[in-house]
C-alpha cells in the first residue's frame, strides 16, 4: 500500500465527472469543433481511469494509455481534415447545416 493508493476511489470519481461533462458537451453543442473537443475530454477521462488502476493492477494500464493517445491523435488528424473538407463545401461548422445523411 502506497500513499497514492488511497486516491484510487477519488481518481475514479473524478474521471466519472469528466466523462459526464464530455457527454453533456456532445449533447449540448452544435459546433463540430467543440464536439470534437468534448470527445477528447472523454478520452482523457478514460485515460485517468487507466492510470489510476495501473498502480493496483500493473503497468499494463499505462501501456493502454499510450494506445489511447495514439488512436486519439490519429482520430484528431483525420477528423479535423474531414471538418476542413465539410467547411469548404458548406462554409459552416454548425451541425444544423450538416445534414447530408438525413435523406
Amino acid at each position: 500500500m502506497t500513499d497514492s493508493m488511497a486516491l484510487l476511489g477519488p481518481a475514479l470519481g473524478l474521471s466519472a465527472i469528466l466523462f459526464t461533462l464530455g457527454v453533456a458537451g456532445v449533447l449540448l453543442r452544435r459546433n463540430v469543433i467543440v464536439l470534437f473537443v468534448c470527445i477528447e475530454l472523454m478520452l482523457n477521462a478514460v485515460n485517468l481511469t487507466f492510470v489510476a488502476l495501473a498502480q493496483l493492477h500493473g503497468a499494463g494500464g499505462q501501456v493502454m494509455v499510450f494506445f489511447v493517445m495514439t488512436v486519439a491523435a490519429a482520430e484528431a488528424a483525420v477528423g479535423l481534415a474531414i471538418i476542413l473538407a465539410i467547411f469548404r463545401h458548406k462554409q459552416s461548422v454548425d451541425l444544423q447545416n450538416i445534414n447530408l445523411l438525413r435523406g
Partner: protein
Amino acid sequence: MTEAVFYILAACAVVTATMCILSRSAMSAVLWLTATMLSLAALYVLLSAEFVAAIQVLVYAGAVMVLFLFVVMLLNLGHPTTDMRGPASVAATIVIAGLLAIQLFALWRYTPARLAGEVAQAPQFSDPATLFVAGQIAREEAVARGVVGAVAAPLFQIYLVPFEITSILLLAAIVGAVVLAKRRI
C-alpha cells in the same frame, strides 16, 4: 498533503472542463481543454505515472491541441453567437448526463481494501493472495529500472504486436488526413 494537492488539481480539472463545454467560441473551448489536460498531467504524477504525465503534456497538450488551434484559426469563425441547442435538448442532456453520472460515480467507492474484502468473501473467483501482485511487481520494477523502464518492458514484450499495429494506424491516419485536406475532394 497528497490528498489536498489531489483535490486542488481535481477542482481545477472539473472547473476547466465545465468552462470548456460552456464557452461560446471554439478557440476558448480548445484553450480550456488544454488547461484540463495540464491538470490531468499533474494528477498522473500524483498517481505515480510520471512518464504518462510527460507524454500527456508533449503529445496531448502539445501536439493534438496545437492541431486543433490550427484548424480553429484556419476556419476563421469570428465571434459566433451561441451554438447551444434548444431548451428541450438541454433538459434531455441534464437527464442523460445525470443518469450517467449517478452510474459512473459508484466508482468513487472503489478502494483496494474494499476489493480485497470482496475477493476474500468469494475466493473461488480469484485468489486473495495474488490480487495486487501485478501492482506490487510494477512498483518494484519502477524502483529498480526507473519509471520509463517499468513502462517500456510490457510495451515491448507483452504488447509488441499492438505496438507495431499502431504504426500502421498512424500511417493510415497520415495518408487519410492528406487526402481529405486536399483542395479538391
